[in-house]
């Protein structure tokens, strides 16, 4: 029986191995071998992850933390040591399982999806690179390691979004994604530096054990202002959250995520729905005690999450590109998780329901959203377009897919007994328990919206008359390699709620908190019913609009003759445009131009002036050499006088 440490190594190193071998050797020469290797290694990784998880949860050791291994990476001064290690606790174990399992699925799926692509080898190696870095991020024992893999995740996402680098749209999307997240990461790094400077360590354990009262006395000089160390820590916590803010594409840094859909669909499904984008949530969950200790950081987090949730859901109701719809729904689900974490804070006390709910939602959401993306991928693969206009009536052609879609959509809409119901219900409950009634209302509303747009997608894609000659002609069929993972994923999408609930309520607590915990929580029985009711209502509306016999599909689908509000929403509140204006006009056109001006005209200008001046002096000397003998003789006489007066001789 292999022990856990070996398992840990396996989980991390198998994807790395795949990446190296595929990247350097197999590459594009023999894509088949690359695919096979990728699938096998990721499968093994997934297996060992599940093994590890079972070991961990069955042992009575859980839910304490365990560090399987840890190496010194960069020794800074004294305690300040950057380490690379593997931390095991319920949260990371759960993430391990999710990441490995989903990447396994996606690898299988990609065999089918990438069949025609020349560069499949590169694709598989990059995919493994991503899962390696994501795993590294998940098991991080300290902030520094987190940041390292955080960046690696970002770059592999960049590479995969821009995988089809001959598509300008893909290239620009990848660039945008990378730079936006990088922008957030710069604050993250600043936060790390600040916190590590105050605390003197990167370790999560140390940082989570802090109580701010110890830092009231000392003060930190931040250049522009000077503040007490405690406030510095609060600032640091906000800065660190900013990293998650960008990575999880919370408003207003959300715009990269929908654009990132330019990448291949498997990439969208693994990176931009299931795993990478929840890194932000994971970060906050990981540092929860610290965040909870830091003043109102959690409240900020809650509002950011809540707003994004509604905002994205509203946009999703109008989109026609199925991948974008899914992207916005991802955004809104991330918003759920985020605000659930934030909602734990009420005044000075903290409830942990939200934390559990949020992590639980990470878990369930991963499965159904991943499968939804895979389904979208296979639809696109058949219909060769993302546009809902060209779909419809696919129910007959792709029955398996149809059923799996239904399962996942019910799951995301929070209809019992599907997985989504349990986690989302918990979240809404958490909002209620936290006495954040406004957010609570928003959450209910959003769950309704969610159901509406998901079913809109569902009906428009599968029901009604085929609007695509390919479908009419019946070229459409189900690709085995692509359908298999969908089917497999449908199972956890259906059941993970039921299974998970027990485990999560048993093991999942954020650990020791430095603020008084709220022990007795009002448990409102009516919330699930309300939530489900709202969902059902929304479902009916969707059915009435898009699937009922007298629904006008054509009219529903054209966005031209619509009210102004609809247009605004349809154009995502013109956020891309604003973004481009800011970047083009302000950054490139403004700052960059000014600094180039300083360089080209001021610095070079001064230089040119100096040179000109010296040359003028030279001309002066040379004009004296007019070859005029009397003048020369004069210089002799004048010279005597000059040195008589300036020679500093004591005459």
């Amino acid at each position, binding site marked *: 029986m292999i022990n856990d440490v070996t398992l840990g190594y396996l989980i991390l190193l198998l994807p790395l191995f795949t990446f190296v071998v595929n990247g350097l050797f197999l590459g594009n020469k023999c894509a088949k071998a690359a695919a096979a290797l990728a699938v096998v290694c990721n499968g093994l990784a997934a297996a060992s992850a599940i093994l590890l998880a079972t070991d961990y949860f069955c042992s009575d050791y859980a839910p304490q933390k365990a560090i399987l291994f840890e190496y010194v990476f960069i020794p800074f001064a004294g305690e300040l040591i950057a380490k690379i290690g593997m931390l095991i606790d319920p949260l990371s174990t759960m993430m391990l399982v999710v990441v490995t399992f989903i990447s396994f699925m996606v690898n299988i799926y990609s065999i089918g999806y990438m069949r025609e692509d020349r560069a499949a080898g590169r694709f598989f190696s990059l995919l493994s690179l991503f899962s390696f870095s994501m795993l590294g991020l998940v098991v991080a024992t300290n902030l520094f390691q987190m940041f390292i893999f955080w960046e690696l995740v970002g770059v592999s996402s960049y590479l995969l979004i821009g995988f089809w680098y001959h598509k300008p749209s893909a290239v620009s999307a990848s660039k945008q994604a990378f730079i936006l997240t990088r922008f957030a990461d710069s604050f993250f790094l600043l936060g790390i530096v600040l916190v590590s400077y105050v605390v003197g360590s990167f370790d999560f354990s140390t940082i989570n054990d802090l109580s701010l009262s110890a830092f009231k006395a000392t003060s930190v000089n931040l250049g522009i202002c000077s503040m007490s160390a405690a406030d510095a820590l609060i600032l640091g916590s906000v800065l660190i959250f900013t990293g998650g803010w960008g990575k999880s594409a919370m408003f207003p840094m959300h715009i990269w995520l929908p654009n990132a859909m330019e990448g291949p669909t498997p990439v969208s499904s693994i990176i931009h729905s299931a795993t990478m984008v929840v890194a932000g949530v994971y970060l906050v969950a990981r540092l929860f005690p610290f965040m909870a200790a830091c003043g109102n950081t959690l409240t900020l987090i809650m509002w950011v999450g809540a707003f994004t949730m509604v905002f994205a859901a509203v946009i999703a109701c109008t989109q026609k590109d199925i991948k974008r719809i899914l992207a916005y729904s991802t955004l809104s689900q991330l918003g759920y998780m985020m605000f659930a974490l934030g909602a734990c804070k009420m005044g000075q006390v903290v409830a942990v329901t939200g934390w559990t709910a949020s992590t639980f939602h990470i878990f369930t959401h991963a499965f159904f959203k991943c499968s939804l993306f895979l389904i979208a991928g296979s639809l696109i693969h058949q219909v060769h377009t993302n546009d809902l206009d060209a779909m419809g009536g696919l129910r007959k052609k792709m029955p398996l897919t149809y059923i799996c879609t239904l399962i996942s959509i019910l799951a995301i809409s929070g209809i019992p007994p599907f997985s989504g119901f349990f986690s989302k219900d918990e979240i809404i409950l958490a909002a209620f328990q936290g006495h954040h009634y406004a957010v609570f209302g928003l959450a209910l509303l959003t769950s309704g919206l969610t159901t509406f747009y998901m079913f809109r997608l569902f009906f428009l894609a599968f029901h009604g008359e085929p609007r695509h000659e390919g479908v009419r002609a019946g070229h459409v069929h189900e690709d085995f390699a692509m359908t298999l993972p969908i089917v497999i994923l449908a199972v956890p999408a259906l059941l993970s709620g039921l299974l998970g609930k027990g485990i999560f309520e048993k093991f999942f607590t954020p650990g020791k908190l430095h603020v008084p915990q709220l022990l007795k929580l009002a448990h409102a029985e009516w919330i699930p019913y309300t939530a489900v009711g709202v969902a059902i209502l929304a479902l009916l509306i969707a059915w009435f609009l898009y699937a009922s016999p007298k629904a006008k599909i054509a009219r529903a689908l054209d966005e031209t003759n619509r009210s102004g509000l609809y247009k605004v929403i349809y154009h995502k509140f013109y956020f891309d445009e604003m973004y481009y204006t800011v970047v083009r006009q302000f950054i490139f056109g403004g700052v960059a131009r000014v600094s180039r001006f300083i360089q080209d005209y001021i610095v070079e200008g001064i230089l040119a002036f100096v040179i000109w001046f*010296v*040359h003028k*002096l*030279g*001309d*002066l*000397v*040379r004009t*004296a*050499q007019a*070859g005029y*003998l009397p*003048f*020369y*003789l004069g*210089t*002799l006489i*004048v*010279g*005597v006088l*000059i*040195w*008589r007066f*300036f*020679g*500093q*001789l*004591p*005459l």
Partner: protein
Amino acid sequence: MSQYIPNFIIPDALLLLFPFIVIGSRLFCDYKSKIPWRIANFGFIAIFILLNLIPLASGEGRFFISNWRVDDFGVLMREVLMVSAILGMWLSKDYFEHGADGKPQMHQIAEFIGAIAFATFGGFTVVSACDLLTFFLGLEIATIPMYALTAWNKQDQMGSEAATKYILMGSVATAFELFGFSYLYGFAGSLHFNEIQHAITNGTSPLLWLSVLFLFCGIGFKLTLFPFYTWAPDVYEGAPTPVTAVLSVTSKATAIAFLVVLVYGPLAPIQQQIAPLIALLAGVTLFVGNLGALKQSRLRRFMAYSSIAQAGYIMVALLGPATMGKTAIVYYLFVYAVSNYLAFFIFGIIGHHREETFASLRGLSKQNPSLAIALAISMFSLAGIPPLAGFFGKFHLFFSGASTGHYVLVAFAVLNNVLALFYYLQLIKSAWVDEPDGHLTPLRLTKRQRGVVILLSIAVVVIGFMPFLSDNIFAGFNL
């Protein structure tokens, strides 16, 4: 009168006799014969070897008839002057040979060499003088042949114009000097250096300062210090190339020797008081020289300005204590002579086929890479880029200057190196980078030219970081 045979005097005596022999030999052989040339070579080299045989004695040196002193500075300066004379002779040889157009550019080689010998002897006299009269005579002996040499080409009107300017201004400078001497004499009441020094140690008076002023102005002319340098560019350009070379080394060496003897001899007690004057002269001169050279297009004029700047650099060393200053100056003169002559040899080779301008250097690196490399070496050496000799020479000078705490002057001089580097790069650019316009006339190198260029290039590269030369000189002063 010393008991033993004063063997240390032999070289001087030979050099004094030598021009008569050379010129006289013309009487017994026909116009084209090589005999005077052979004699000249033999004699100069023999004298140089004999000089090297003289052991360096410390301090006072040895006396011949009580006021012909041969101290170690004297010996070393003699060697410098002889090196210059020999190289000048070799350089000039090609101008007396029948060029492409059948007739030589200059005539009467024997007299020419004789004149050089006289000038050299003048230098000898200056460094071995220990009273004002000998001193003055030496300076004149060193200068007067130069007037004649400048006007050597009777056909060339540039030459005669240059000579006219030179001699007129030179005489004025002589007048200044004489005035200075006269006041010095009046101040000390004697011509002898020791007594002058003694008088100065007893106390100064305006008379002394007046004489110092006039002396510096007078020598400032020969050393091309600001603002007495104005003759140099015209004369350097007007005179024949070998004369320019000799002028730029021998007469400068003589002049600086004059100053060294003066400053470390009779004026030693007031060196501190005249330090500001020296510093000012040095700083202004090197700055002006560098400025003038910035935009030159004719090679000899360019070299004139560069040598003006070099004079300024040399002056810096006069600020230091005697040992350092003398070491620095002698060493630098060696280096300067070698680099300068290397440059002039190359210009001569070019000048035999084209007119001596920057433009005619174009395409040199394509046509004759080794010559281009030699040119680059000499230019970088003059600019003072390590590991070439020029850098170490300048380092000596600055070291001596800084040793008495004149950091500002040293910093200024060092910064001027950048300016200098600029115009030397200009020259290198036209030799290495610029494309030739039209067809290049082929360059023909005689064996002598090739040999000398190689020799000098190696010397420039080696005598810098190889310590033997500087250490020997230094040892000479520290015995």
